[in-house]
């Protein structure tokens, strides 16, 4: 086996080791990075930023802990933005395992802006059967959520008394890692003309571009990069900004390996033909 053939068949343990090194090193060194804000993220930011104070924003936690490292920074940044703008936040979730993440985030961000549960934000929890719920909210939110997640009636919260359906929700934010964002767009967006922004994992982001370019959603925050862009816009760098150098070096390593591997492949093929 010659050198080029060896390169095309590197032991996977070497690749794992290289990846570990290029991911860990930037996390230790913490180099400063320049974040370029893309248009879809800027549009998402503007959709929140242009809302008048005291508007109601519904944030749906449609991801679970497996995607939290990518999507949780978006949730924190959006909550900071919303509270800074004095928006009222309704938190819900279409994945039972995702909702506690929202509760943790609310309890982390709300005290930073002296926001009070029930007055500035509520967590209405989770109900199974999300497509039914999405259509049902178009009629009356109380058909599905009579109480918040603690069992307190929704009408005991002052700002919730005037919230009945999508007409009373200025913006819907779906933070998703699967098909739930599509369902929000199809049911709440297409049917009830609800304004929506989507925050999703890097893998799901390309699938959202068809909705974005058709103006069916206001903006997209895609993956860790999107989260770091939103953090830059709210001027509060967090775990996404911290993680971007590691993602950057990992992408760089993969591109380098692909180039080397393909050079090896082409040379081996050429020699084989001879």
């Amino acid at each position, binding site marked *: 086996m010659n050198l080029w053939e060896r390169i095309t068949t*590197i032991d*996977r343990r070497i*690749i*794992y080791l290289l*990846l570990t090194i290029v991911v860990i090193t930037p996390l230790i060194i913490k180099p400063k*990075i*320049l*974040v*370029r804000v*893309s248009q879809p993220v800027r549009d998402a930011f503007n959709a929140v930023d242009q809302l008048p104070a005291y508007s109601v924003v519904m944030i749906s936690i449609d991801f679970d*802990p*497996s995607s*939290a*490292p990518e999507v949780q920074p978006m949730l924190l940044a959006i909550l900071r933005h919303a509270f800074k703008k004095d928006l009222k936040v309704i938190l819900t979730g279409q994945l039972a395992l995702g*909702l*506690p*993440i929202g*509760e*943790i985030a609310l*309890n982390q961000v709300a005290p930073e802006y002296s926001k009070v549960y029930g007055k500035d934000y509520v*967590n209405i*929890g989770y*109900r*199974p*059967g999300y*497509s*039914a719920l999405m*259509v*049902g909210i178009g*009629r009356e939110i109380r*058909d*599905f959520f009579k109480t918040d*997640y*603690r*069992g307190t009636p929704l009408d005991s919260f002052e700002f919730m008394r005037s919230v009945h359906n999508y007409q009373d929700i200025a913006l819907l934010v779906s933070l998703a890692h699967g098909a739930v964002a599509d369902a929000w767009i199809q049911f709440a967006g297409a049917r009830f003309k609800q304004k929506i922004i989507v925050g999703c994992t*890097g893998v799901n*982001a*390309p*699938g959202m*571009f*068809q909705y*974005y*370019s058709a103006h069916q959603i206001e903006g997209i925050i895609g*993956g860790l*990069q999107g989260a770091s862009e939103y953090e830059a816009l709210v001027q509060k760098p967090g775990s996404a900004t911290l993680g*971007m*150098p590691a*993602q*950057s*070096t*990992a*992408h*760089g390593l*993969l*591109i380098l390996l*692909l180039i080397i*591997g*393909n050079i090896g*492949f*082409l040379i081996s093929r050429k020699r084989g033909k001879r």
Partner: protein
Amino acid sequence: MLNRSLPLLIVLFTALLLIVAFFIPHKPFGDLESRFLNWYAIISGFTFLLGLDSLTRHHLLKVFRQEKGWFYSLLLVISLFATLGLGLYSWFKFSSPFALRAPFMWLYKYMIIPLQATMFATLAFFIFSAAYRAFRVRNLAATLLLIAACLVMLGNVPLGGSIWRYLSQFVHLIFPQFDLTTLYRVELFALLKDWLLAIPQAAAGRGIGIGLALGGIAMALRIILGIERTYLSS
């Protein structure tokens, strides 16, 4: 005869009713749609119980029969009921399992979140290794895919911006008439990534989406008209 035709008639009647309800969202049809959706939500809730029953039965049988990997099944059953127990306890004690001081939240924060995140992160290693082995320029289509993937990867991270700044300096050195600040601002990799995602990728995505929707409609029609009957077989 009735065993076969009655379910088909129920399906046909329900489907027609829902189609009418969708296009006439007024009483009595609008209310019917809401009622059907509520039933759907209730049935969805009960599927959790069905899942719990099926999972427990399957793994308990494995434990009792001492089949291969029975120990993992035992761990699964113990974890399942420990989670359920802690959730119920937290519900009674703190009025919600999601209360920050509840024991369920401790389990969630220190067990479920790290375990799920670790599982997902491990995927990166496999994808990395698989991409290295599989991404070969065997033909034109594979070459285009590889180039597009590299451009998206570069455009998606700050590294792409850094490489572009070095390239700009190089271009400026050869062609001094090009203004360096303007070249910096172009951010070629990010621009190409945005274009790839917004135009060719979105077009392909739409095509697939429309195809899926048409397939879904065709399948729904087949079920409504009783042509597709596999769901009836036991």
